[in-house]
């Protein structure tokens, strides 16, 4: 399992029974409190009128975007992306500006607002369990899931698998794999029987949200150089023009004085 080139998950909302074992697994594996787990099951609740009821729950953690916006936004490069997909956060570089939280369209990174300087307040988010996947194990949440609502594997295979599931049961699924193209593609692919908006997933285009920001940033250096040159040129030109004006004025004055003086 270590030779997976682009590691990814499927989450199938039709299979999730809201047991929250994945949260416990995450808490145990990463030694974090249950109220700060990096994975979260959100019960969407009952919808509709009896007897036509639907119920859905959404398992949520870092989408591990192919084009991570957090990584683009972080001023000090605390985020990195492994060549096999996982997006990682390095707390040793973090300055706590929380711009990544603003950048992430899914609201994934979370910050410890209740810790002071000495305890150290940091960002936390799903790491894709590198300590497990690197020795061939599945991430803790996937390994625990009793209904296989979470599946781990090669992204290309999982995309095919997701479409195959939809084709096998078109009545059961919304005909869309969320994350296949959203935000430039994510490593977390979501299948659902209810509209994705009901699961709280934002409607996103194929263009990652960081795109315009990065394009504009690309202009910075050329703009600074050009603007600096224009300003310097203006300053020199204005100075030269004023000097000349003064000189001409002085000349005129001198002439006028000469004229005044000659008759005397």
């Amino acid at each position, binding site marked *: 399992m270590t030779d997976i080139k682009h590691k990814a998950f499927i989450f199938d909302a039709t299979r999730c029974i809201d047991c929250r074992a994945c949260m416990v697994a995450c808490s145990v594996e990463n030694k974090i409190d249950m*109220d*700060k*787990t990096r994975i*979260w099951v*959100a019960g*969407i609740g009952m919808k509709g009128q009896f007897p036509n009821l639907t119920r859905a729950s*959404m398992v*949520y953690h870092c989408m591990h975007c192919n084009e991570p*916006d957090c*990584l*683009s*936004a*972080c*001023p*000090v*490069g605390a985020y990195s992306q492994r060549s096999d997909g996982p997006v990682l956060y390095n707390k040793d*570089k*973090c*300055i*706590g*500006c*929380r*711009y990544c*939280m*603003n*950048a992430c*369209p899914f*609201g994934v990174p*979370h*910050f410890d*607002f*209740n*810790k*002071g*300087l000495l305890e*150290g*307040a*940091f960002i936390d988010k799903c790491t894709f369990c590198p300590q497990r996947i690197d020795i061939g194990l599945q991430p803790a949440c996937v390994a625990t899931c009793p209904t296989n609502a979470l599946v781990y594997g090669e992204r290309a295979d999982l995309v095919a698998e997701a479409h195959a599931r939809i084709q096998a049961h078109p009545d059961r699924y919304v005909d869309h794999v969320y994350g296949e193209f959203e935000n430039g593609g994510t490593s977390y692919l979501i299948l659902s029987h209810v509209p994705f908006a*009901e*699961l*709280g997933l*934002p*409607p*996103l285009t194929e263009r990652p*949200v*960081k795109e*315009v*920001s990065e*394009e*504009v*940033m690309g202009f*910075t250096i050329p703009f*600074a150089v050009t*603007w*600096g040159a224009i*300003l310097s040129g*203006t*300053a020199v030109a*204005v100075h030269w023009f*004023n000097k000349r004006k003064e000189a001409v004025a002085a000349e005129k004055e001198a002439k006028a004085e000469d004229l005044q003086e000659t008759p005397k």
Partner: protein
Amino acid sequence: MKMQIALNKRLHIGLLPLALLAFMGIAFVIAMVRYVSGIGAVSNLGNSYPWGFWISFDLFTGVAISSGGFLMAANVYIFELKQFKPLLRPSILTAFLGYIMVVVALLVDLGHPERIWYMLIHMNGTSVLLEIGICVMTYLTVLAIEFAPVLFEGLKWQKFAHLIHRFIMPFVILGVVLSTLHQSSLGSLLLIQPAKLYPLWWTPILPVLFFTSAITIGLGMVILESSVSARYFKRGLETTLLEKLARVIPIVLAIYLVIKFSQLTIAGDLKYLFTSGLMSVLFWSEILIGAVIPIVLFSIKRIRQSDTGLLTGAVILLLGMILNRFDVSWFAVTHPDPITYIPTFMANNVHYFPSLPEVLVSVGIFSAGILAFGLAVKYLPVFEAEQHHDTA
């Protein structure tokens, strides 16, 4: 000996400086609590609202109202409009203090203020925030250099003042370039939130809009600070100069409005103008207060020529434009709906409103700025005509 005289004089003036000192003390205590127990202990910031009042007021507003410094420096040094010299020093002082206030506020807001210098060693070139950080740090240095002659003259070190004055040009140009960059980049900071910022505000040309409005804010601040300090220190007001600045404001604001509405038309966002409830109200408030009313007021010669008219116009303009900064960085930003999916880390503070201590921190920092401005004006040759060390 001098210290004592200063103290006595200050005690004579009485209430205002004392009130400012009290606010500073309160802010200091709150900041200490924040450093010991975390940002959540003093503020209502949380995972659903990672940025709030501090960013909108201290960073966005603080940087914007400090733009008078580079405008006046450009006027006097680059365009050699020497008549504006009396306004140069107070504007540089405002900018200098403004940026110090921004940095101090960020040291409260950052999770790891002791690591702020990491921006210099771990640079991520795609980050707009890095650009702003670097620009602000560098520009603060430039402002210190631009303001240094005033301090040296106050200390009667004419030689140093003279020396700096001789080599000021490169710093002025650097200052204007840096200001252009980060005034506009504050707008670019929101570009990464196309899914979160309301379409009436999100546009790829946010940096252009920010820079254009920053010019009007800077001019407004020059008028405001001159008017207020003239009243407080019973000093003559440079009404004719301010009138000239005020004449420019309607032109820049008109350009701003044209850019803004052309953009909305081209992007096809005109449909949101009247149909977005609170967002429409906010949008029209900032357009009316920040642009339309100031255009009307400053187009009337009688208003431009009266001290009260100038002050009123500037205050209205600033209120509207500050509302714009709050809209863009806070009011019009929605984070993913925490009601549909509720990760625990998003469950707190679904509706953000700043806590009292949060506001008091900003009030305290602002008070320190006002006090420093007052002291500088009192003891340094800020409002005095530049002393003769022009070599040319």
